Each structure stands twice: as C-alpha cells, then as structure tokens.
C-alpha cells in the first residue's frame, strides 16, 4: 500500500526535480563565464564576475541597499502588522472574518496595481501631500518615486498582508487563558502585553521577521517601479543587467549572489524554528 503511494509520488517528483535542477544549473554555470557583453560569454571557467561584484562599489552598494530596504520594510511590517494580527486573533465576533478577508484581498491583488494606487496617493499634488501641506506638517511634498522611502513603502505593501496572516497564526498558538490568568492576578493590559504576549510571541515573530526580510530581498516589482531607475536593489539590477545591458553572465552572477544570500537566511530561520520546536516554544 505505502509502496504504491511512492509510485504516485514519482512522476511529479521527476518533473519537479528536472525543472529545479535544469533551471538552476544553467544560470549558475553561466555565472562563471566572463561577460563579454551583448549576450556573449568567454571561453574559460573563471571567477571574474564574482570578483567584479566584490570590487565594484556600484554592485556592493546595491547589495547594501537591498539589505537596508529589506530590513526597514520587515521592521515596519511587524510594527504595523502585529497589533492587527493580535486584534483579529482575539476577536470573538463575526467581524474577524471580514477583517481577514480584507487582508487576503490585499495579498491577492498584484503589487503592480497597488503601486499605481501608491503613486496616485503620494503624487506631488495628490490628496495626501496637499492636505498635509495645508495643515503645515509638510513644507514640501513627500514623494515616493525614485527614493529609498518609496521602495520601503512599496516593499511593505508587498509583505504586510502576508505578515499579518503569519503573525496571526503565531498569536493563535498563545492560549487566551494565559492572558486571563495574568489579568486576574492584577496585571493591566500593558503589563499583559509586555510580560505574557510579547515573550511568548517572540520566537514566532523572529522567524516571521526573517521570512518577511527574505521576501523583501527577492522582491522585484515594487522595488523596480518605485525605485524609478534611481534606487537599485539586487533584483532590480538582475533584470536591468540582463534585459537592458544584455550582460547575461553578469546578471547570472548577481542572481546567484541573491539566491545564495536568500537561502542562507532561510536555512537560518529553519534552524531557529527547529530549535524552538524542540523547546516547545511554537506549535506549528
């Protein structure tokens, strides 16, 4: 019986394995050939592209921008998302489903459409900037096109819905009775948050933060559109180098570096999750 199920597994496994192996090996191999431009590559198997990456301040700066924007976006996603996740997880009424539906719609609608909305909201003579300048909070319009804050806001729209759903599942593992117990013993709300919920959620939140950070590291669309050709993250550079400059091997090298950093962070979060499971800190 179980052997038969092994046979059922075989065809999709072979197909998936071929796709993973073939697609990844081709570009990884390409990354080791010198880039001669216009899609041409050198003859020898060399590390040229990698040394170019490590010595060219433009590429290193892109790596730094990627890390910086991803870290900021992950942080803000947690700050905005955690209270919402908590609210939904602890809600007893039918409204919880409506609130969840709002989050799910936001994760399902493609980021390109959301970027269009963002551009209207933050346009120089748009509703937000005009009202903020009228009240006197801003002296000049806050725009998000072609600067780092724009990229961070775009990344947050990419991750926030997913982040809320993730944190929601973390908070659901914390029994409500623990909060009640703390409250009965005289802790006020703030103290309950600080001494009960926060410590219990911390492991799950840490792993979630790493996952969100990783999503941002690999995010292309929002970074490319809101970066407006002035802010370069690694995913934006990969597309640009390949499609516009036709440097196939250099693009492959950038992609390889991105892939390796993302997988390293993933392994770290899997490792942390294992240790937490072993310590019974999370019930996933």
């Amino acid at each position, binding site marked *: 019986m179980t052997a038969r199920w092994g046979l059922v597994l075989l065809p999709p496994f072979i197909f*998936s394995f071929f796709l993973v192996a073939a697609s990844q090996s081709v570009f990884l191999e390409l990354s080791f050939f010198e880039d001669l431009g216009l899609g041409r590559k050198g003859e020898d198997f060399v590390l040229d592209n990698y040394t170019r990456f490590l010595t060219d301040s433009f590429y290193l700066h892109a790596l730094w921008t990627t890390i910086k924007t991803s870290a900021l976006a992950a942080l803000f996603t947690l700050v*905005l998302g955690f209270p919402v996740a908590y609210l939904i997880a602890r809600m007893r009424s039918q409204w919880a489903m409506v609130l969840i539906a709002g989050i799910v719609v936001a994760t399902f609608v493609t980021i390109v459409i959301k970027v*269009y909305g963002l551009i209207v909201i933050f*346009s120089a003579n748009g509703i937000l900037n005009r009202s903020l300048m009228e009240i006197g909070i801003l002296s000049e319009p806050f725009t998000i096109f072609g600067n780092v804050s724009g990229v961070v806001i775009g990344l947050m729209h990419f991750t926030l819905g*997913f982040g809320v759903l993730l944190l929601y599942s973390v908070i659901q593992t914390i029994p409500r009775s623990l909060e009640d117990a703390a409250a009965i013993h005289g802790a006020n709300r703030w103290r309950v948050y600080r001494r009960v919920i926060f410590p219990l959620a911390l492991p799950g939140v840490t792993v979630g933060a790493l996952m969100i950070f990783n999503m941002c590291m690999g995010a292309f*669309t929002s970074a490319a559109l809101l970066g407006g050709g002035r802010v370069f993250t690694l995913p934006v550079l990969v597309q640009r180098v390949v499609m516009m400059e036709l440097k196939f091997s250099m693009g492959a090298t950038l992609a390889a570096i991105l892939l390796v950093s993302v997988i390293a962070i993933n392994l770290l979060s899997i490792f942390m999750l294992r240790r937490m499971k072993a310590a019974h800190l999370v019930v996933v």
Partner: protein
Amino acid sequence: MDRASRYKIRRTLGRVAFRAYCALSYIFLLSPMVVVIGTSLNGPKASTDASFQFPPENISLHWYARIPEAQIEALALSFALAGIVAVLACILGVPAALGLVRSNLPGKALISTVFRAPLQIPSIVTGIAFLQLFYLIGDLTGVYWQGTLFGLVLGHVFVATPYVVGTVTAVLQRFDMRLEEAALIHGASRWRAFRRVTLPVIMPGVYAGGLYAFMVSFGDVPIAIFLTAPGFVTYPVELFTALENDFDPSIMASASMVIFLCLILLLAVQKLVGLDTLLRTGGGGGR
C-alpha cells in the same frame, strides 16, 4: 473620581487607541486599491492631470469603455495562463502530496525539499534561470520557448506547484485513515474508496492550492517579464511597462476590474471551502 472608574477610563482609552492604530494599518494596506478604483471613475474632463485625480471628478465609467485592445489581450492571456497553471499545479501537486504523506520512502525529507525549493528561490532568479534554460534548449534544438505560452506555463507551474503540495499536505495530515479503511472493509475498491472518501475530504485543500496557484500566476511580474515577448505580454507585465513608459488612464479601469475579480474569487472561496481553510492550509503564503 474613585480608582475603579479611573481604571475603567484608562482601559477604554487604551482600547480606543489600539483600535485606531489597527484602523491606520488597514487604511495603509487597503488605500492603494481604493484609490485605483476611485481614480478609474474620473470623467473625461477632470480638472488636473486626468489620470491622477482622487477623489474622482465628474464620476463616470468613461475610461471603462476605452480600455485599449492591448490591455484586453493581456488580460485574456493572463486568465488563460493562470487557469492552465492552476490545473497543472493541481495535477502535479495532489499526487505529490499524497505520496509525501502516505509513502514511507527513504529520503522523504529530501524529496519534500525539492518540491518546496521553488518557494525559496526569489522569483527574479527563477525568471532569469528559465530564460537561460530556454536559450540553451533553443540553441540545441532550434526551438525557442521564451515568448511562447508553453514557456510561460512552465515557469509559472514551477512556482505554483509548491502551493498545492503545501495545502493538500496540510489537509492530508489531518485525514483519518480509518475512514478509507472503513470503505475498503465495506467492499469498495481502492480507487472507489479514494474517489468517494478521500478525494472529497482533500478537495478544500485542492481548491485552496488551486486558488494560490492561480493568483501566483495571475499577479506575477518578475518571471513573466523575462518570458514574454513584444505583442505577447501578461497583464501585470503590460501594467509594469506602461508605468515605465507612457501612462494611460484606462489602466485604472482595467486594474479596478481585476481588483473586483479578486474579490469575487475570494467570495467564491468563502462559499466553497471557507476562508479559514485557506488560512489553515496557507501553503507557504503569498509572494
């Protein structure tokens, strides 16, 4: 004022502040979509730059009647593509999940890693990887797959299948094998037991996974941007290039239609399997 009522007031204030904060998060999250829908309703002669006026002026469906051919073709392509991808992802993903949960092959952890691998790879990397793979295959055989429906399907099935594997696995792990055994004892054939007992139970997982697969394909830019060709673009890529080049206000109209489509799909899922199934089985989350 005594201590008890002071405590009560502070508690109420705290609660109000907390809810207000959550409301702000929601406004942040949902405003872009609301603004897109609002802007799409602008009349032909809105005062300033017609496409950017929000709240809309001279409300009308003016731009809905003027969605250009290119966008409609792109929408049609995206629809067809996402539908094919969802079906193929289920055809691959359901047996994979069944095999992963029920067989006792050695190295199952490794096999499951292969199935999950596409989720670990940033989409832009998947895009360039498939482009280079297609170049290589083309150089060898003379048939180039980039810019064809087949190539796009291949790239999207690659990223969509893990979602189905994830959701169906999640449902199967809670499946009580005794149900199927009971059917067998009562004389059902293996296939009949599977079709009449197991399949209905895992169907919610299949729907959820299929929906994720559809959405992953329907919203993707980073893979499709490498695998489409001029005159053969998916809707998100069309929007992406339109923003980089020239901007057409009718985009807001077609984008609003896509937002409504997402809402309708979500309602269908809620009716069909319930949103909580979608969340409980959330196979790796949205990307």
